[in-house]
C-alpha cells in the first residue's frame, strides 16, 4: 500500500501535472530572462505568467507579486527588508509567542540587534490577545507580524480586526502576514486584509520545494536583504529555480481552479477523521479553535495517557505519516512551544498528534488511518501507567 501522508503542513507531494509543467524548464526552457534575445524574452513572459497566476489567487495586481525561492526566503525578504527600510521611524516590533519560527527567529535577530520586541500572548484556542496588541502599539512601532493560520493549531487569526486596531493606534505601522499554512486552504484577498506584506509557499499545495512568493503593497519600500545579481526578482537575487516557480504556478492553478470545492473536500475528510476517532476513542481534546476559525486541513488532538512519539512511530510502521508535539520527537527534547503557550500541559503536549490533510487525501485513506490510529492507541494504553489509573 502507498504511504498515507497526513503531515501536509510540513510539505506536500508534487501533483503529477505540476511535475509535467516543470519538465520543459529542466530541458529546453532553461534560460534566464533578458532583453533583445528570444530566449530571454520568452523567459520573461513565462515569469510574468507565473506572477499573474499568483496575483489572481490573491486578488491583486502582478506588480505587487515577487517570486522567491520559498516561503522562508519570502519571510526574510519581507521582515528584514521592511525593518531595515523603516528603522529611522522606530525600533519596536510586535509578534506573538505562537508565531511561525520564521517570524520568531527574525524577531530574536532584531532583538539582539537592539530592537524592542513585544511577544503577544495567545489564549487557549490560539487567538492572539487583541487588547494586548492595542496596548502595545506605540508611535515607534514599525511592524506587526502575524501567522494567518497557525502551523500547529490551525487557528486563523482575525487579521482584519488586527489591521483595524493597528490603524486606530498608528497609521504608520505596517502589517506582515505569514500565509504559508493558509494559502490555498482559505480564500485570501490582500486588498480586503489591507496588509502591507504577505508571504506564501508553493510546496504546501503540491508544488515542488524551493518556490514561494511575496505580496508587497504598492508604495511599500523594502531594503535589500539578499544582495546579488538580479536574475528573476530584484528582491530574491541570483538564479532561483524557474522550474520550481513553473511548478508553483501550475500548483496554484490547480488548487484555485475551484478553491471552495477543494476546501470543502479537505474539511469533510478532516471532520470524518475527527468523528471516526471520537467514535472509537471517546471524547478527544482538540488543540486550537474549531469551526470557521480553524483552517480546513488541520486536526490537532492530545491524548493524556500516552506519549506522542511512540504513537507517531506505530503509525509510521503502518505506513502513515503524522506529526507530534512530543518533546521526545523534537530535536531539543522540548515540548511544543505553541501548545505550552496556549495553556496545554506538558502531558498534553507530549501526547499531541497533528494530522494535516491535502486535496489528494481520500476517504479510504482516512478510514484506514482511523483504524490504525485506534489500534496504536489501544496498544500503547496497555503499556501506560497513566492509562491504568
Amino acid at each position: 500500500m502507498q504511504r498515507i501522508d497526513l503531515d501536509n503542513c510540513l510539505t506536500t507531494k508534487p501533483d503529477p501535472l505540476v511535475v509535467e509543467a516543470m519538465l520543459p524548464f529542466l530541458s529546453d526552457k532553461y534560460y534566464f530572462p533578458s532583453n533583445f534575445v528570444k530566449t530571454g524574452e520568452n523567459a520573461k513572459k513565462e515569469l510574468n505568467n507565473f506572477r499573474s497566476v499568483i496575483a489572481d489567487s490573491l486578488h491583486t495586481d502582478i506588480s505587487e507579486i515577487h517570486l522567491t525561492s520559498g516561503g522562508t526566503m519570502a519571510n526574510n525578504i519581507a521582515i528584514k527588508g521592511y525593518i531595515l527600510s523603516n528603522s529611522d521611524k522606530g525600533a519596536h516590533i510586535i509578534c506573538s509567542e505562537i508565531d511561525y519560527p520564521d517570524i520568531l527567529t527574525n524577531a530574536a535577530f532584531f532583538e539582539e540587534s537592539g530592537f524592542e520586541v513585544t511577544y503577544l500572548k495567545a489564549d487557549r484556542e490560539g487567538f492572539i490577545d487583541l487588547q494586548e496588541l492595542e496596548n502595545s502599539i506605540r508611535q515607534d512601532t514599525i511592524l506587526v507580524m502575524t501567522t494567518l493560520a497557525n502551523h500547529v493549531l490551525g487557528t486563523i487569526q482575525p487579521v482584519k480586526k488586527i489591521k483595524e486596531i493597528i490603524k486606530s493606534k498608528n497609521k504608520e505601522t505596517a502589517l506582515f502576514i505569514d500565509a504559508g499554512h493558509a494559502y490555498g486552504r482559505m480564500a485570501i484577498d490582500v486588498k480586503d486584509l489591507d496588509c502591507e506584506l504577505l508571504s506564501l509557499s508553493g510546496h504546501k499545495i503540491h508544488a515542488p520545494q524551493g518556490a514561494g512568493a511575496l505580496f508587497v503593497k504598492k508604495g511599500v519600500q523594502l531594503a535589500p536583504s539578499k544582495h546579488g545579481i538580479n536574475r528573476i526578482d530584484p528582491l530574491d537575487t541570483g538564479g532561483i529555480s524557474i522550474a520550481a516557480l513553473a511548478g508553483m504556478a501550475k500548483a496554484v492553478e490547480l488548487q484555485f481552479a475551484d478553491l471552495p470545492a477543494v476546501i470543502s473536500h479537505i474539511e469533510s475528510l478532516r471532520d470524518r477523521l475527527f468523528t471516526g476517532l471520537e467514535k472509537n476513542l471517546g471524547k478527544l481534546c482538540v488543540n486550537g479553535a474549531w469551526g470557521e476559525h480553524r483552517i480546513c486541513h488541520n486536526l490537532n488532538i492530545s491524548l493524556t495517557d500516552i506519549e506522542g512519539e511512540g504513537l507517531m512511530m506505530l503509525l509510521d510502521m503502518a505506513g502513515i505519516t503524522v506529526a507530534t508535539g512530543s518533546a521526545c520527537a523534537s530535536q531539543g527534547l522540548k515540548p511544543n512551544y505553541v501548545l505550552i503557550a496556549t495553556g496545554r500541559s506538558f502531558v498534553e503536549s507530549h501526547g499531541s498528534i497533528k494530522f494535516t490533510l491535502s486535496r489528494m487525501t481520500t476517504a479510504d485513506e482516512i478510514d484506514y488511518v482511523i483504524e490504525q490510529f485506534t489500534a496504536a492507541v489501544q496498544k500503547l494504553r496497555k503499556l501506560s501507567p497513566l492509562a491504568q489509573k
Partner: protein
Amino acid sequence: MEYNDKVMDHFANPRNVGKMDNPDATATEGSYTCGDLVTFYLKINDSSQIIEDVKFLSYGCASNIATASVTSEMAKGKTVEDAKKLTWKEITDELNGLPGSKIHCSVLAVDTLKSAIKDYEIKKGLRVADPFTKDTIFQELKKVIYPPASEDICTLKMVKYVYFDDGIATIIVDLPNYDQYKEHIFEDIKETLSRYPEVKEVKVQ
C-alpha cells in the same frame, strides 16, 4: 536520528508488559516534564534471591519502551545482587546502541529497576529506608528538567530554598511569572515529591 532493528523490535513487541498482581517490590521513576515514566514490578524468591518475574509499564517514547523491555528481560532470572550491578551501558549495548539523545532512557530504566530492588530490600528488612530529608528533596529536584535549557532546575540554580517539616515540603523556585514553563515546573515538582508517603503537602512558590 534512527532506531536500530533491535530497538524497534522491543518497541513494537515489548516483553513483560503489564501490571503485576501482588508484586514483592515496585517502583516508579521518571518525569512528566520529559514525558517519560517507567514502573517496574518484581516477583522475588526470598530464599534464592532470584528475580523470578518482572513486569513493567511505560509512559514514554519508543526508546523508553524498548529500554524498559530489554531491562526486564535482563533482570529476569538474575539474583538481586547481580541485577543491582546492571548498568545503563549494558542496557544500551544489549539494544545494539541508542541515538545519543535517547541514552537517558536506558539510565531511567536501570534506575527504576534499582529503585524497585531497594523497595524489596526495605520491605524485607535487608536495608533501612533512607530517612526523608531535605537532601531527598534535592535529589528529586535534580530530576525536574527546565525544557528550554534541557537541564535540571538544581544545575540551573533555580532552586532558592528548600524546607521540610511535619510532612510539608516547601520549595522556592526562581522563575519569573511570565515564564511559560513555570506552572508546569511547579506541577512536576508536586507530582515527583508526592510519590513519597512522608510528604503530606508540597508548597512551591
